[in-house]
């Protein structure tokens, strides 16, 4: 009977059964099971946050971890009133510094990668050495420096050090990438009459978009998540970034979990949006370039 039924599309049936059997034998099903278990526990805190963010106080006291009705989206309105300013401040600090950082790092890395100028390796070592300097060593003198410069409680107190510090890692990554670009293309452009700036701007940069993107995203992630530097340099509530704003918010709303959790959800949205647009770039940039020592 199976033969008669199978006669219409025998080959395809065979392939289907075969691939199914292969998947079973190869063990993909248990791999996926284990992966899903890992993922479940990784996402569990966020799922519960999301559930709690719709609760009012009695609902939370009664059944903290189950979905309860009616939902209270008004929590989000309350949270937004407080968190929106912090998001705005973080957006300014991260975007201004990422633009400045990428421009400066790309120019410097290009110089290191493509010109055998005297002193190149010494200067480059000077940059690399900074990778070994932890924030603990520089925190106190840097704080006293910006205090002397009168930068405390300004936007520049975040932007300028973020540009300076972010360059180090970016130059390190970008130089390797620029060096690997085929030199013939730049020679050809020069022969065609392009000057050095045009070679960089119209050939080098377009070829490096993906790695520039990875460097930029990593910079945004690290500045967005920075806690200590904004904490010690910003005391005015008007300028607080998201991290220290949320910290203050938690202290103020300690037992009112609904709006607090709504605030956490709102705080996560900007990076999730960024990730939605760049995930492919990010995942592939991290997976392809052999990042190792």
């Amino acid at each position, binding site marked *: 009977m199976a033969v008669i039924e199978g006669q219409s599309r025998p080959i395809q049936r065979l392939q289907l059964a075969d691939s199914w059997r292969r998947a079973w034998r*190869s063990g*993909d099903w248990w*791999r996926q099971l*284990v*992966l899903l278990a890992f993922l479940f526990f*990784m*996402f569990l*805190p*966020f799922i*519960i*946050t999301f559930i709690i963010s719709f609760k009012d106080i009695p609902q*939370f006291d009664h059944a*903290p*971890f189950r979905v309860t009705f009616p939902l209270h989206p008004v929590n989000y309105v309350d949270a937004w009133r407080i968190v929106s300013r912090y998001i705005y401040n973080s957006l300014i600090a991260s975007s201004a510094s990422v633009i400045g950082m990428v421009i*400066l790092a790309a*120019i410097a890395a290009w*110089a290191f990668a493509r010109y*055998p*100028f*005297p002193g190149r390796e010494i*200067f480059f070592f000077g*940059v690399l050495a*900074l990778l*070994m*300097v*932890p*924030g*603990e*060593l*520089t*925190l*106190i*003198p840097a704080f*006293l*420096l910006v205090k002397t410069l009168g930068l405390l409680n300004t936007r520049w107190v975040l932007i*300028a050090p973020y540009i*300076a*510090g972010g*360059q180090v890692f970016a*130059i390190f990554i970008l130089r390797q990438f620029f060096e690997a670009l085929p030199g013939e293309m730049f020679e050809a452009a020069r022969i065609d009459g392009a000057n050095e700036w045009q070679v960089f701007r119209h050939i080098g940069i377009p070829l490096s978009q993906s790695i520039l993107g990875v460097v930029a995203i990593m910079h945004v*992630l690290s500045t967005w*998540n920075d*806690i*200590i530097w904004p904490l*010690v340099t910003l005391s005015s509530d008007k300028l607080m970034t998201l*991290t220290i704003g*949320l*910290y203050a918010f*938690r202290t103020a709303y300690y037992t009112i979990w609904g709006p607090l959790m709504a605030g956490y959800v709102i*705080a*996560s949205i900007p*990076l999730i949006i960024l990730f939605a647009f760049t995930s492919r770039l990010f*995942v592939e940039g*991290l*997976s392809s*370039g*052999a*990042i*190792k*020592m």
Partner: protein
Amino acid sequence: MTTDEMRATAPNATQVNPTIPEERVSGLWERVYRYRFVYVMLVPTFVLLFTFNYYPAFMGLYRAFFKWDIGLQPEFLGLGNFQKLFLEDDVFLKSLRHVSILTSWRVISAVTFPFIVAELIFNLRNHIHKYTYRVLIILPAVVPGIVNLLLWQFIYDGTHGLLNAFLEGIGLENLQQPWLGSPKTSLYAVTFMGFPWVGGVTVLIYLAGLQGISDEIIDSSLVDGCSGLRRIFAIDIPLILGQFKLIIVLAVIGGLQGWVAIFVMTAGGPGTASMVPGLWMYNNAFLWNKMGYASAIGMFLFLLILSLTILNIKFMKTSDV
């Protein structure tokens, strides 16, 4: 005649290394001049680095040898700060023990759980699934770190916390406690937070290494009957030692610098039950204005990180295939 003149202009250089042809010798300054625009390109970068990186770094090293309270004239102490740190400061010595527990667990968890996940994803046959899991694994990384910390604070909460609710659910009420508020558990609570300890970026770094292993090696190992766990230990791990090395270095550095999490979760408390050196430095500097003493702790952390990193790089040999 002309060659003699040229030789006369650069006598020192020719004496130092007579084998270098004359064009090269006179070329140094010429090359500096030719590449003058390159130095201009580097000026903005180095101005910023000098202001916000080099100067504070050297200042931090220098002031570690001073008694330096805000508003007072710095007073040179020699090694006095370090003497106090290691001989008299019990909290600091205790914090060293804490940070070694924290860092050890970070290293252990970073070389096991993310690697298991990376192997699982790597061995999936279906490429669409492979890509989907890669994206899902990295997704939690975009939730702001502070949100994660505050969530874990909530999980450990004594009255409303998820962990206590879970213990009640499985009938272990007697284990319930304020995890962060009790001196017995606070250090372990902050050490083991982040369950199931799978960092998305770490997984992707391992995965990149696994994908870099050439197909011929995997195929020939299959022909030789080497598969499953045996292949992981005989082929995968030795071939991605470079990635392991990077992850270990990052975990050690992250453990020693991971005091911000403790600052948010427990502020080192209760009392000093979960104090770590970085936080002790912060307290000395920004609560008690003892900048010189705090700089000494900063310098100690710098030297510790530096030597551990060098040790790690020397100790684990990378073999590139």
